[in-house]
Structure formats: structure tokens, C-alpha cells
């Protein structure tokens, strides 16, 4: 089968824009184990992988109406890993039939002085949180089940409290623009997780 045309978005600076395809849902704490059990069965065979990450969201305010948002994430339990800087664009409002939320994303690995550098650029931290959970993979799909913790004292990741009595479940794929078949594969996988969790395309604007 011929590959679909790779770019339907403009190619800038010699690189192809990558898009994140996303489906989200949640499960209550008491249902976590059954979900993990099913995911272990459905996903690629690998060592169970847990993570403990600290994420900080930075804003750059300009004269434009909306500030520029960047997310800086570092691992709290794995030493020596680079920091992860992420830009996420506005969700593409296009095909209502498309099963997943699609937005432009740029992922950059950086050295540890990322937060100092962002402040020097003029960014200011808007909020931060700790994410603790499990990560699974199936082909190019990534499934993350995690709990968000509020940080009680800014900058101190030792005193945290859970934000809710549930776990957030995210199914995502990062692929070049134009690969809409990806969202069909994601929908098919999401079907297999029902009724334990209902993964849907959630428009962030509707929640605000």
C-alpha cells in the first residue's frame, strides 16, 4: 500500500511539522489495577515502566492576545536523563470525523539549565505539578496512566498532594502531519479498553 502524502502542512526550515494525536480519559483509583492488567496484556511486551516527573509550565506574554506556552519536564527518579521541553499548538479544528485531538507539537531534549534559560528568555512559570504513573507502548502508540499531584510549596517537590481520586489515561501518537490513519488505529485500540476506561477526544477549550 502506498504511503499517504507525508506533508499537508508547510515544511518550515527543512523539517516536517510533527503532530500529536491524543485521546484522554480517566479511571477512579479503585479501578487502576484492572486497567493496568488489561494494558499489560494488550501492549508490547516490555518491563513495566513507571515514572515520576516534575512538570513546569512557562508563559511568555507579549502583545498578542494569547501567551506562548512551553512545558518543561524532568524526571525525578531517573538521574542523568535530559530535560524535555515541549511546545503544543492549538488543536486543529478540522474534520469532525477525525477520532483524535490533533495538534502541532515540537519536542526538544535539553540540558539541565532549562528553567534558568527560559527565565532569561523572558518566560515566567505559570504553574507546576508532579506526575506519577505508568507508561505502556503499542507500536507507535504511547499509553500513559498517571496521577497528578499538586505541589504545596512552590519549588519543593517533596510536599505534594494528589489532585483527585483518579488517574488520567492518555493515548497518544506523535507522527508527521497528514497521517490521519493514525487516529483510526487509536480509536480501534481505545475500543479494546472499554468499558474499563472511555478514551475520547476532549477539546480543552470546552473545559475552560
Amino acid at each position, binding site marked *: 500500500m502506498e504511503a499517504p502524502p507525508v506533508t499537508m502542512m508547510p515544511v*518550515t*526550515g527543512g*523539517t516536517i511539522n510533527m503532530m500529536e494525536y491524543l485521546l484522554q480519559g480517566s479511571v477512579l483509583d479503585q479501578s487502576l489495577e484492572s486497567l493496568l492488567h488489561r494494558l499489560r496484556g494488550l501492549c508490547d511486551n516490555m518491563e513495566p515502566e513507571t515514572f515520576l516527573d516534575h512538570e513546569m509550565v512557562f508563559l*511568555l*506574554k*507579549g*502583545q*498578542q492576545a494569547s501567551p*506562548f506556552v512551553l512545558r518543561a519536564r524532568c524526571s525525578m527518579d531517573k538521574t542523568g536523563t535530559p530535560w524535555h*521541553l515541549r*511546545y503544543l*499548538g492549538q488543536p486543529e479544528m478540522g474534520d469532525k470525523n477525525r477520532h483524535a485531538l490533533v495538534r502541532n507539537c*515540537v*519536542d*526538544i*531534549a*535539553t*540540558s539541565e*539549565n*532549562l528553567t*534558568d*534559560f527560559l527565565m*532569561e*528568555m*523572558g518566560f515566567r512559570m505559570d504553574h507546576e505539578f508532579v506526575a506519577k504513573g505508568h507508561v505502556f507502548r503499542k507500536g507507535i502508540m504511547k499509553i500513559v496512566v498517571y496521577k497528578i499531584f499538586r505541589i504545596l510549596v512552590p519549588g519543593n517537590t517533596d510536599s505534594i498532594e494528589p489532585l483527585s481520586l483518579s488517574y488520567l489515561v492518555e493515548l497518544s501518537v506523535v507522527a508527521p502531519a497528514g497521517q490521519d490513519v493514525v487516529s483510526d488505529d487509536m480509536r480501534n485500540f481505545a475500543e479494546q479498553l472499554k468499558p474499563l476506561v472511555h478514551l475520547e477526544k476532549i477539546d480543552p477549550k470546552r473545559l475552560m
Partner: protein
Amino acid sequence: MGVTCVSQMPVAEGKSVQQTVEILTRKLELLGAEKQGTFCVDCETYHTAASTMGNQGQAGKLMYVMHNSEYPLSCFALFENGPCLIADANFDVLMVKLKGFFQNAKANKIESRGTRYQYCDFLVKVGTVTMGPSARGISVEVEYCPCVVANDCWNLLMEFMQSFMGNHTPGIPSMFSNKHDSIYSPGDTMAQYMELFNKIRKQQQVPVAGIR
């Protein structure tokens, strides 16, 4: 990366940039250095756009985004006297997204290209510094690969540089005194290139035709 010293070689009296580079590289080859491909270090300048300055209440800052062929998958972003961020190549894509806030001063793009030589434990890169179509000067980068503590090998580096740079051997880079015993890193080399490029930009144009 080993401890590295980046300096400028002045153009020889009565000669062009290209001729001076040839004299230098011939001296290196006579010493026994082996040619090992080419190198390129480039630097782009971004300044904070007017739209963000009002909120900051401070003068616009200059941010330099540099690349080094020695680290093809990396991108270095620095502020003068500020932190140096080492990121992967996607950082360039992010700068395109940030074009409303940081404007690329395309006319300020400066680069140094030339040949890479290896001599025992030293790596020497002699480059022609160009801004647009014109050659503006010569950069010499000397790395002593086995050592990562700057102050431990400065004397050795200086002695080696004297053997082919003669009187034009530079003094100890100012950043070495700040390093004390901390490990030398590629970010330090890029900071030296940034200083060199800024110095060259301020100098008057070298009165010779641009190189081919």
C-alpha cells in the same frame, strides 16, 4: 570534549584572508598534522521583538543560536554573560514558532568554515569567518582531547599553539579563570566562538575581496 581554546588569527601583512589561512595550514602540515575533513560553526542572532519588551521593562536581549558540525545533532543557545542551553536540533523548529517574540537578525548570521587537523592528541580547526559573502577574519580552535580541566593543561595548549601561531598565540581565555576545577564542556567552546564572532562583527571589514 577536551579543553579548547578559540582565538582569532590576524591577517598577515599584505596578504589576503585566504593566503593567511594557507600559510597557517601549511605550517600545521609541516608539523605533521593530518587533515581530517572539514568543520563549520555558525551563529544566528535573535532579538526580543518589540511586542515583548514593554512587559519586561528592560532593554531587548540578544540571544545567539549556534551550531557546531562536531555535534551535528545539537543546538546551542546562549545569552551573553548568561546561561548556555544545549538542546537537540528541534530547537531551531521552536525558534520558528517563536518568531512573533524573537526576531532573527538574518544579516547578522556569521559562520566559520575550514579544515580539521589532527596532531597526536590535539585537534586543530582553522576557519575562515564569513558574514554573508565577505570574509571577515580567521578563527583558530585548538583542542587538547585528553584533558577536561581547563587550568590543568593551559600551559601545554599554549606551547603547542606557539609552534604554529608564533607571536599570535592568544593569552588564557577569560572564561578559564571562572572554570576553576570544573569540567570543560562543549558549551564553553561555543561561548568562546560567540565572543570571537562578536569581536569580528565589530571590527572593520577586512579590505580584501571575499573568498570563493
